[in-house]
């Protein structure tokens, strides 16, 4: 066998095996962790009401079901881009979502709920005036309270990616209450007496599965659902997961029509209409601009504090007494090794247990500063070390003291060396601000996620990407120009 044909065979085998593992012909996306609809049991297997339901549907259609874990706000784009066939996650049927995606007939009648800490004196929505309330990004709870907030005067609506992080913040007291789907909440707190559901909020919402608009599979799935309701399978799921009998009038028991958009024709599912939809763009622009403001503020704060910290660390490392120098080096090495996302979560969730409350902004700024400081310190150190020792000697010989040597001679030269890498670091910090969305910071990415879940359309994400690009591309070009200019200056 020649080498080439061997390689070809290996590639072919690889293709064939990957084809075999892709036998799943029904790819389902679900926000795993959404109890009791889809979550992991002790063995790590995906279980839940909707998991059982979709597996049964797959069986009836003779299709293999593969479930992949996708955050709630990413489910709609996943359906629209064809990465998944069906999205599940106790998704409420709404008119706005119907304009972009297709639903099959609903199978659960739900409501929202307000959950608080057991020790809290909040007993209803009316007590939330001026308080902070948590919701899931782009969920019906988010939509409902945003629309009805004029009535309740809530101080701040903070958006989370799922139930667990939101409940952690209810527990730590960072938020006063959590508005979310009632079945999930009741299931989650059944063994947690330190939480209580204090109000059921009737929204008339119904859960269903989402498919791409125009996907012929939707009718087949709908028909299977009809059968499953008639045979009592769905009602049985209700009994096994909630331990109660569903109401005969509910969509869990009775067959209902597939929901359709009431607007004429709905949205065209064409590529441009899906990924760059002007209506969606206009609707989501206020959200995106508010997010941009937060991103810029967080970026600027972290960059400025990181510069100061980095300069200090570099000075200590280069000129401090030995133990301080070693400590500085350790700091720099440690914070360059920690994934910023991990640090962000630690800084956000750990201090409350020590009685320190950091706002999401403060936590994000601290985490970004800690890491940016470490990188900046290395940049400054390299910059200062790039200055020939003769510059220090000439300064000493002229009688300049340490402060003037640094301020007048060394730093102005070091800054030329460090400006390009510092600008690169600024670009990285601004990009890293997007990670702050995990601690419910309403930054650009978070707002785009919220907007795309509200609209069930990925346009806001595309626009957010364009905004990041417009922000950072000029900086990238600037770095290139500066590097070229300084290279020329030194080669003179």
């Amino acid at each position, binding site marked *: 066998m020649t080498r080439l044909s061997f390689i070809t065979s290996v590639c072919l085998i690889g293709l064939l095996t990957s084809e075999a593992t892709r036998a799943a012909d029904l790819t389902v996306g679900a926000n795993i962790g959404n109890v009791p609809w889809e979550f992991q049991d002790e063995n790590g297997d995906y279980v839940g009401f909707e998991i059982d339901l979709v597996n049964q549907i797959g069986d009836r259609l003779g299709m293999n079901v593969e479930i992949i874990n996708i955050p709630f706000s990413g489910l709609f784009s996943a359906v629209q881009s064809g990465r998944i066939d069906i999205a599940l996650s106790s998704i409420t049927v709404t008119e706005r979502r119907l304009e972009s995606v297709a639903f099959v007939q609903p199978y659960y009648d739900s409501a929202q709920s307000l959950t608080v800490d057991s020790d809290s004196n909040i007993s209803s929505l009316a007590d939330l005036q001026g308080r902070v309330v948590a919701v899931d990004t782009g969920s019906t709870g988010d939509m409902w309270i945003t629309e009805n907030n004029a009535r309740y005067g809530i101080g701040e609506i903070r958006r989370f990616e799922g139930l667990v992080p939101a409940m952690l913040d209810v527990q730590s007291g960072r938020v006063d209450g959590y508005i979310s789907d009632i079945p999930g909440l009741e299931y989650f707190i059944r063994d947690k007496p330190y939480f209580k559901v204090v109000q059921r909020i009737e929204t008339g919402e119904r859960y269903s599965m989402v498919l791409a608009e125009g996907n012929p599979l939707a009718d087949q799935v709908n028909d299977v659902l009809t059968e499953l309701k008639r045979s009592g399978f769905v009602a049985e799921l209700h009994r096994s997961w909630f331990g109660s009998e569903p109401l005969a009038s509910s969509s869990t028991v009775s067959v209902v029509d597939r929901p359709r958009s009431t607007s004429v024709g709905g949205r065209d599912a064409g590529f441009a209409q899906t990924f760059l939809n002007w209506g969606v763009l206009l609707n989501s622009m206020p959200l995106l601009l508010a997010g941009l403001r937060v991103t810029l503020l967080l970026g600027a704060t972290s960059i400025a504090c990181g510069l100061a910290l980095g300069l200090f660390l570099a000075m200590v490392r280069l000129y401090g007494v030995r133990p301080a120098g070693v400590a500085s080096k350790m700091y720099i090495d440690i914070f360059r090794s920690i994934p910023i996302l991990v640090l962000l979560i630690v800084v956000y969730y750990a201090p409350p247990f020590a009685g320190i409350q950091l706002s999401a902004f403060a936590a994000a700024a601290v985490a970004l500063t800690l890491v940016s400081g470490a990188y900046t310190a290395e940049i400054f150190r390299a910059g200062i070390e790039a200055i020939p020792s*003769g510059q220090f000697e000439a300064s000493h010989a002229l009688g300049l003291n340490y402060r003037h040597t640094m301020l007048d001679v060394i730093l102005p030269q070091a800054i030329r060396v460090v400006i390009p890498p510092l600008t690169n670091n600024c670009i990285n910090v601004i990009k890293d601000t997007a990670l702050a969305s995990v601690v419910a910071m309403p930054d650009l990415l978070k707002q785009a996620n919220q907007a795309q879940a509200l609209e069930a359309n990925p346009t806001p994400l595309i626009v957010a990407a364009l905004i990041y690009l417009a922000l950072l591309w000029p900086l990238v070009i600037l770095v290139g120009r500066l590097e070229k200019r300084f290279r020329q200056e030194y080669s003179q």
Partner: protein
Amino acid sequence: MSAIVSIKNLRKQFGSFDALAGVNLQINEGEVVCIVGPSGSGKSTLIRCINQLEDFDDSSEVKIAGIDITQDETARADVGMVFQSFNLFPHMTIRENITLAPLRVKQMSEQQANAIADDLMQKVGIEAQAEKYPSQLSGGQQQRVAIARALAMRPRVMLFDEPTSALDPEMVGEVLDVMRDLARSGVTMLVVTHEMGFARQVADRVIFMDEGKIVEAGKPAQIFDGPAHQRTRDFVNAVLQH
């Protein structure tokens, strides 16, 4: 005559190597002293110690105008230094290079510092380059700026560490001319050099160093024409036969 520089038993080790093995030297006001010798003989280390660019043995003593330099940092301000590699500040104009220390160390007004700079730039012949940056000047011009920069602090003694060694041959003359003028005007100078012609012509005293010690010192004619020691003779013969 009073001693501006007084060195007693100057010793310095680099590891186990004796860079300076007990040097004694007095330099009087207005005197021009040239130090010659093979490389590694301790010439540069000697003048770097005078400016505290190197530390040295505790038993040694270096005094500038009667002040022990290890006791009083300000003694350094009385010593000007010119380096082999110029060490100008590349981000400052020629004028700024010269006025920086007078402004920052002597707290002079801009006007005073500029007046001194103008005077010195004229003296070393670089007045036309005042607003240029070091990288725009030739090596000879840069070294003349370095001399003016050191002189701006009005030092009691000027140290030169092989000031022409890094220069292209055609630029050596212009720097030596400036140094010759300085010597004539009465500036106290200690010069480490390989320019034997300059040493013979300008020095009041020539010192021959080898292996971290002063082997022989005397008038230029004595060192170059009738050295007392064999090592001095070998060195002078080797250098002058070029």
